[in-house]
């Protein structure tokens, strides 16, 4: 069972992480190519605290707090630049994070941190805990979608200038999206550190940021169910693909491309098209 438990834990953490980006990119339309930095901030915060003797459950809110605070700072950058400029700026933030952590001996530098103290939970309980966190994030996402904040987010995603002339404080809403999304990424990072017990700068680099963005886009940007399913599947795909061994990344890249080429709305749109072929529009 341990293998399945471990896979389920990985899935849950990926779902949580993907949903956190979905809040920023899917709901609020602010594309981020550096989201893994916040996973890293959460992981490092929780890892360092755990090593300092802080109990596991207490490391979680602190990881969220630190990641969320940094998220707001990056959010301020998002106020200054837009669209493709924002994409590249966030990418830069990701590289900067990795570059800075590499040089910090206090954070283990290039070597990373290993032997992170155990949470005290059994593997099964920890898995259930991670699943519960992911479920909570999914519920929160579904709620945000339904409340006024979600409506403002999707309007900002489409045309923020128009939202502004509707008297809405666009910067504050954007910052809120960044704060929420990055705090959740921090939570995912704390769970990640606890799950692998080892973290190093390269685990939070550009590739990880691209991976999580792919999960969101393949799931169907903005769709809570779509993103949940795609994050769960894509996170364990490499493990399943062991059978095709050396071809697995080729298949992964190919699938990503084909999905965008033939179903740009992601899996959510694909499913809708199959079951309601006559309805127009994806939303």
């Amino acid at each position, binding site marked *: 069972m341990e293998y399945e438990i471990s896979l389920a834990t990985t899935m849950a953490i990926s779902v949580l992480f993907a949903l956190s980006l979905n809040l920023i990119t899917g709901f609020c339309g602010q594309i981020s190519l550096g989201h893994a930095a916040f996973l890293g901030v959460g992981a490092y915060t929780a890892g360092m605290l755990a090593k300092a003797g802080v109990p596991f459950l207490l490391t979680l809110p602190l990881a969220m707090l630190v990641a969320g605070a940094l998220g707001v700072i990056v959010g301020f950058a998002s106020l200054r630049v837009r669209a493709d400029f924002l994409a590249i700026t966030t990418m830069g933030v990701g590289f900067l994070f990795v570059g800075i952590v590499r040089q910090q001996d206090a954070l283990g530098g290039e070597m990373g941190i290993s032997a992170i103290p155990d949470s005290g939970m059994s593997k099964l309980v920890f898995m259930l805990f991670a699943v519960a966190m992911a479920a909570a994030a999914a519920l929160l996402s579904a709620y945000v979608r339904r409340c*006024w904040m979600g409506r403002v987010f999707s309007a900002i995603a489409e045309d923020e200038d128009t939202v502004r*002339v*509707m*008297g*809405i404080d666009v910067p504050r809403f954007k910052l809120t999206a960044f704060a929420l999304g990055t705090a959740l990424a921090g939570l995912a990072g704390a769970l990640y550190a606890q799950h692998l017990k080892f973290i190093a700068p390269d685990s939070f680099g550009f590739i990880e940021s691209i991976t999580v963005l792919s999960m969101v886009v393949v799931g169907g940007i903005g769709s809570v169910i779509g993103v949940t399913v795609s994050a769960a599947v894509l996170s364990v795909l490499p493990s399943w693909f062991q059978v095709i061994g050396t071809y697995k990344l080729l298949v992964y890249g190919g699938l990503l491309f084909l999905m965008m080429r033939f179903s740009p709305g992601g899996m959510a749109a694909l499913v809708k098209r199959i079951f309601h072929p006559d309805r127009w529009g994806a939303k």
Partner: protein
Amino acid sequence: MSAQMSPLLSVGAVTVQFDGVTAISDVSFDVNQGELLGLIGPNGAGKTTMLRVITGVVRQTSGSVRLEGRSLEGLPTHLRIRRGLALSQQIVRPFRDMSVIDNVALAAGADKTVSPVKALLHTGRERELKIGRDLLSRLGIERHADESPQIQPMGILKRLELARALALAPKLLLLDEPLAGLNSKEARLLADTITEINRSGTTVVMIEHNLGEVLRICHRLVVLDNGEKIAEGEPEAVMNNATVRAAYLGSGAAAATQATAGDQHAEA
């Protein structure tokens, strides 16, 4: 209009320069409560820039803008809107991912979108939907309420744009070429609707090239040319003003052909 009545909007000696080029030079005018004011002038006269100064998208180099006697200096766009302005944009920009009614309801929910926390804590929108439906029926497009804006013709979209602005319950409605892109019949109908909105208590400032309709419905005109105010007053008097005629006729041939071409385009 009596001099004692304090103006709703007061533009005082506004100058705007971009990289040393003067777009607006020392322009002042007032908009009185209940008025329907036309802001006209040839292309490039600075009308849209003036509107942007009022909404805070563009910052003036000098001068002041006051709403109900309070300066709008330093306020970002959204706070100016919350003070009582509303803008209907020249190029219609509905949210295409929302239905027509959702577009209007979002604007009507201004008190719930005032802060992220408030927005997070509220889900219901019965009141906003009702306001939305009322506005749509007032503008005569309620039968399209649940459709997507993506499939609507320009005439409907112009009215949707107007409905969304009205949903903010503004004290002053700013219209940027509301009639552009409509054929003469549609333009006439929409101009009537604007008159009606004005009669029911909303002060309106309108930029418009369709002089026929402007002269028909506006109470007063302010004429800009090359960034300067060249005339102000009752429509008829303004149009008889020699400077105004020169401004329009100077580029007259071009303006006239352009207007015709525009009409043909709209009808095609």
